[in-house]
C-alpha cells in the first residue's frame, strides 16, 4: 500500500515514450487505469521483445491500485514477452494479492484488460501482426456490439466473452467481475438483458441451481444427527421459553405466544404490555433468539409475528 501513501519503490507513474500503452475503464465508471511498459527490443524479431519495466496510473479504490501494482510486479518478475504477457489473467493478479473480496474482482479484471490493450498497442508500434499469430484482438466488439449495461457502457460481445473467460454463472458474479448491471439494475431481466445472455452462453449446460432458497424451511433442517424429532424439537423450544423467557416477560406484564415452528424458524408474538413496546422486536431478537440458540440449537432464528 506504499503507492497509496505516495512512498517510493512502487510502479506508480507513467513511462515516457513507452513501447506499449493501454487504458481501461473511465472516470464515469468509477475506475480507470493507464498502463505503460518498456521492452528490451530484440534486434531482429519483435516478438522476442522482453518487457523490462511497467508502470501505471490508476483512478480508483485501494483494490484497484493494489491490482495495478500487482500486475506490474508480475510482469517485471516474469521477464515476459508481450505476447506471453497476454496469458496473465485476472486470476493471477488475485493470486498475487492472495485474494480480493468478491465485489472487488472487477479491479483485477481491469488490470488484465489494460495489459491486453497495451500489448495490442505495442504490436501496432512494432509492426507485429497479432491476428496472424492467432490472437483474437476483440477489436470489433466495443464498437459494434449492442450496449447491454448502459450505466457502464458494456456491450453484448464483450459480456459474452467475459462470461466465458471468467466462467461467470450469475448476475452478481457478472457485476463483481466486470461491473455490468451494478448501476440501475434495469438490464438484469429485460429481454436481451444479463440473464438472457447468461442463458445463451451456458445454454445446453445444466444451469446451476439458480437463485437457491437461502433458507431451507423444511423439517429436514433440524439436525439429522440431532436426537430431536420435529415434535421433540418443538417441545424443547416450548420448555425453554416457559423456563427462561416467560418469567422475565411476565414480570414486566407481558407474555409470549409461540405461533408456529418451521424447521429452525420460531414464530413468536409478544403479548400484553410487551406488545405495544417499541423495543419489542429487539427483545425478541436479542433475548429469545439468544436463549434458544444456547439452549436448543445454534441455527434457530426468531421471527416476530
Amino acid at each position: 500500500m506504499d503507492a497509496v501513501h505516495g512512498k517510493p519503490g512502487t510502479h506508480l507513474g507513467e513511462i515516457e515514450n513507452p513501447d506499449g500503452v493501454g487504458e481501461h475503464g473511465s472516470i464515469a465508471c468509477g475506475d480507470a487505469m493507464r498502463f505503460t511498459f518498456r521492452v528490451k527490443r530484440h534486434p531482429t524479431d519483435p516478438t522476442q521483445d522482453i518487457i523490462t519495466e511497467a508502470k501505471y496510473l490508476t483512478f480508483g479504490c485501494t483494490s484497484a491500485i493494489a491490482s495495478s501494482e500487482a500486475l506490474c510486479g508480475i510482469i517485471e518478475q516474469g521477464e515476459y514477452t508481450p505476447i506471453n504477457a497476454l496469458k496473465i489473467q485476472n486470476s493471477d493478479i488475485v493470486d498475487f494479492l492472495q485474494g480480493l473480496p468478491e465485489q472487488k474482482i472487477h479491479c483485477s479484471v481491469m488490470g488484465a484488460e489494460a495489459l491486453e490493450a497495451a500489448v495490442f498497442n505495442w504490436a501496432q508500434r512494432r509492426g507485429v501482426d497479432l491476428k496472424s499469430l492467432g490472437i483474437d484482438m476483440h477489436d470489433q466488439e466495443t464498437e459494434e456490439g449492442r450496449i447491454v449495461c448502459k450505466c457502464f457502457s458494456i456491450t453484448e460481445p464483450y459480456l459474452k466473452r467475459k462470461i466465458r473467460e471468467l466462467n461467470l454463472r450469475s448476475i452478481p458474479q457478472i457485476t463483481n467481475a466486470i461491473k455490468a448491471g451494478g448501476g440501475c439494475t434495469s438490464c438484469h431481466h429485460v429481454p436481451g438483458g444479463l440473464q438472457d445472455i447468461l442463458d445463451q452462453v451456458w445454454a445446453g449446460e445444466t444451469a446451476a441451481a439458480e437463485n437457491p432458497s437461502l433458507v431451507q424451511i423444511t423439517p429436514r433442517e433440524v439436525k439429522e444427527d440431532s436426537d430431536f424429532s420435529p415434535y421433540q424439537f418443538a417441545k424443547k423450544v416450548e420448555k425453554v421459553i416457559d423456563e427462561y423467557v416467560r418469567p422475565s416477560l411476565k414480570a414486566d406484564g407481558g407474555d409470549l405466544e409461540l405461533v408456529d415452528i418451521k424447521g429452525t424458524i420460531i414464530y413468536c408474538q409478544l403479548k400484553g404490555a410487551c406488545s405495544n413496546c417499541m423495543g419489542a422486536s429487539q427483545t425478541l431478537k436479542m433475548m429469545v433468539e439468544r436463549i434458544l440458540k444456547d439452549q436448543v440449537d445454534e441455527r434457530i432464528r426468531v421471527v416476530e409475528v
Partner: protein
Amino acid sequence: MTDLMKITYLDNNATTQVAPEVYEAMVPYLTEDYFNPSSMYDPAQRTHDAISAARKKIADALGRVDPKEILFTGCATESNNTAILGTAKANHNRKHIITTAVEHPAVIEVCRELERNGYSVTYLGVDRAGNLDMREFIQALSHNTLLVSIMHANNETGVIFPIEQMSRIAKQTDSAIIFHTDATQTVGKLPIDLVSGFPYVDLLSFSGHKLHAPKGIGALFIRRGTRCRPFMLGGHQEDGRRGGTENVPYIIGLSRALTLAMERREQDESYIEKLRDRLERELVEKIPSVQVNGKEAPRLPNTLNISFHYIEGEGMLFQLSSFGICASSGSACTSGSLEPSHVLRAMKVPFTAVHGSVRFSLSRYNSDEDIDKVLEVFPQIVTNLRNLSPYWDNEKNLPRSDALNLVK
C-alpha cells in the same frame, strides 16, 4: 325534481371523477405538447423531461423511492399481470404462490392461469370480520414459495390487510420470496412509504382512476434487484421493462393526482370518514336487520359495505339509480357472472345478506347533502323490496319466523 336527478356519486371504489387540477395539468400534453418522448427534437425532449419529472414526483410520494423503481403501465390489471407473470417468468425454480381468497380478479385470475400451468396456489381465507389468519399464512410459506401477493385493502369491504407485517414475516422466513401487493384501493388514501413503512414489499400495483386521474394509466413499483421479466414486450421505453409509447398526458395526470391526494390526505381522510360514519350510523338506526360488512376489521375510511337481509341488491341499486344515486352491490345479479361476491362469501356472510349488500364508496367530492339524500330515500327503498320479499313479515317489520327455513 331537477334537484333529485342531480348525480350523487357514491361509487368511488369503482372509479373516480377526474380532479379539475389533474385535467388542467394534462391539457398541454393533449394539445401543443403531443410529441413522442423518444424522438430527438427539442419539443420531444420537453415531453421526455415532463415524464421524468412526473416519475420523480410519484417516487417521492411513495416514500422517496428511486424513480427508476416506478414503471408506468396501462392500468392496475396490467401492473398485477406484470408483477405476477413477470416474477414467474424470471424465477423458474419455484412454483408456489400465496394469495388471498378475496383478491381482485386481476390477481385471482392470473394466479388461476398459473395454476393451470403447473403452479400451486394457496388462497388464504378470511374470518367473519374479513381479517386474515397469520398462523395460516405462516403455515403456507414453504421452500417452494415464489411469490406472496396480498392486496393492501379490499375493494368491496375496504378491509385493510397488514402488509407491513406479512411482507416482513415472508422475507424473514426466506429472503428469496417475492412480495407483491395490489394497492389500487389505498394509494392516495393511506400513507404508503416504501422505504421506511414497507421496506419488505418488492412490488406494488396501483392505477390512476381510483385517485382522480383518468382511466388508462397505472403504475408498478419494482424494488431494485427484484427478479421480474417484462409482460409487455416492445420498444426500449421504461428501460425495456414495458414496451409501448409512453402515455404522456395520463402520466402527467397520474403524477398530479397523486401529489394532490398526498397534499390533502389527512384533511380528506377525516372529512370523508365523518361522512361515511354518519351514513353508516343512520342507516343502521333507520333500517332493521342490517349488518355492516368488515366493521370489526381495520377499514378504509371511505368504504361502507352494508347488507340488508332478505332483499336483493340489484333491486336496491335500480331504485337508487332512479334518484340519481350511484352505488354498487355484491349481488349476483350485478356481477355479470350469476355468482354473488366471492369476498362476502369468503367472509361467511350469510346468503340472506350477500345478495342484499350495497357498497357506498366516497371521495373528497361528496358532501353532507349526498348523505342526506341517501338517508332520505333509502329506508323507503328497503321497505318496498321487503314488501315483495317472501321472507319478510311486514306487519312486525321483522323476518318471518320461518324465514331461515325458507332459505335452506
